[in-house]
């Protein structure tokens, strides 16, 4: 498991180094971080807030927190995308058990999932890289 984790970190680091930074002068487009966060915020209110709450704190022992969560902020984007697509049931998260199930959200589009995840990775105390619709699409294609 540890080996996989390091693998992911190394791979991500490699990806970051080789990634071309977006020019500051470039006009905002739907794919930019800010726009994605904005759309994600709207979607969060509709799809996530009831359980994960306004402060992203979840509900102790019932619904997992997003704010401060290593899983949410971390580099394993595939796992995050899969949680939204497939939901989660009876699984311990960072050593804590949560009573309520998370329903699957396969009905959301790739862009909607990307926006929601980008928002929760960049709200409250979280700060992490964007998730793109292409990344969601790739995971969905492999998702059974």
């Amino acid at each position: 498991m540890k080996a996989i984790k390091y693998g992911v970190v190394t791979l991500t680091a490699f990806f970051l180094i080789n990634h071309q930074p977006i020019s500051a002068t470039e006009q905002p487009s739907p794919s930019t971080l800010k726009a994605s966060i904005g759309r994600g915020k709207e979607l969060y209110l509709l799809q996530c807030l009831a359980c994960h709450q306004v402060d992203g704190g979840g509900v102790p022992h019932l619904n997992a927190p997003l704010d401060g969560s290593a899983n949410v902020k971390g580099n394993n984007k595939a796992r995050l995308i899969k949680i939204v697509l497939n939901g989660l049931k009876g699984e311990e998260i960072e050593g804590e058990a949560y009573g309520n199930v998370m329903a699957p959200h396969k009905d959301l589009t790739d862009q909607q999932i990307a926006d929601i995840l980008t928002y929760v990775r960049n709200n409250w105390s979280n700060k992490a890289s964007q998730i793109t619709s292409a990344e969601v699409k790739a995971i969905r294609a492999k998702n059974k």
Partner: protein
Amino acid sequence: MRKIVSLCLACIVLLSTTVLAADSTHLNNQITVKPDADNAGLKLLPGFGALKVADNLGRTRHLVVNAQGDIYTKIMGRVASEKGIVKLHDSNGDGKADVITSFGNYGGTGIAIKNGYLYASSDEEVFRYKLDDKGAVLDTKQPEKIITGLKKGNQHETKSIALDNDGNIYVNIGAYSNSCQIEDRTKGSLGKMPCPILDSAGGIWQFKTSVLNQTYAQGERYATGLRNVVGLDWNSQLNQLFVMQHGRDQLHDLFPELYDERANAEKPAETMYAIKKGTNAGWPYVYYDPELNKKMVAPEYGGDAKKESTDPAFSNPTMAFPAHLAPNGLLFYTGNQFPEKYKNGAFIAFHGSWNRAPLPQAGYFVVFVPFENGKPTGKWEVFADGFSGMEVVTGTRGAAHRPCGLAQGPDGSLYVSDDVKGTIYRIVYNKETK
């Protein structure tokens, strides 16, 4: 130390004199403990005061006080070795626990004392421990296992208990589901018909207190159609079980075309039932709308937010409370310390909501419901507030404390447990502090 001992001796002498001089009712009204300067952070009605008996005990759920004033409280979740039940003893009479011991290797919620035994539950079993004449557990290592093999899901897994005066114990077995949908908590998913959960959960089961290793086969489903009950109490005046149901969640998330966010926050009441053998409260087929005062057909079962249930099988609640407040403790007050109006009325500890979002959360308080002629008056009032430490709770995680269990002390004090920080509060009445 010597000072304390001589002070204690003086107290005993004084107390003995009081006993000799006054009748026992008078003794019950003697409050010897002093409330904390800030009333333990609680907002109380005039004349009442509060103190913290203990703090940082873990996830303290239900609690009970023996005749000597010692407190036993049950710890929920994964517990460390011999940390499942905590006993609090106050050796100098200042109301603060100064001898804290523990035993039991199982997490759980239920705890009660009846006829010389301490009863406690895990999420699957119920145990009992014989008490000595000082109310202390004789053998903490080897309790009698009286009930075993109860169903436990990921949600509503706790087993609250209450005992009657005829050798029976009542155990809540919560439904491991929100509304018995084919896919739990999934948008638009319809309800299973009939709901298969009800054969072994979603109700109250009755067992014998003195028979070992009882399973479902020896128990009896005493009441059904109850989604989850955490707070329950045997009303000895009426010789009847009363329960508080946690109403359903997520009307808006699951059926957004039928319920808006306001309806989600206000519609599915938390409900009190006076249970008779065979009572069916109707979960998952109905919920109770506290604005229309009607049982409504659940949207998973053909409801449209307007369709009233006319099924005669389902009982009406004795009283309805605002949605989602999470009643975790119920206690009928029989003490003499509080003013007369409290006698035989009900205290309810509301753990506090999460499913009212995006509207502000509510609850996180202890309320009082006056009873007249064995029935609730239908009105309730906040008795103790301020547990959350916030004016408005916007996110559940932010609440500093959440009231959970209730117990009455031998002097008529009301004890409240908090399962966030493990604080035990004691609320007392003293006319002079008015």
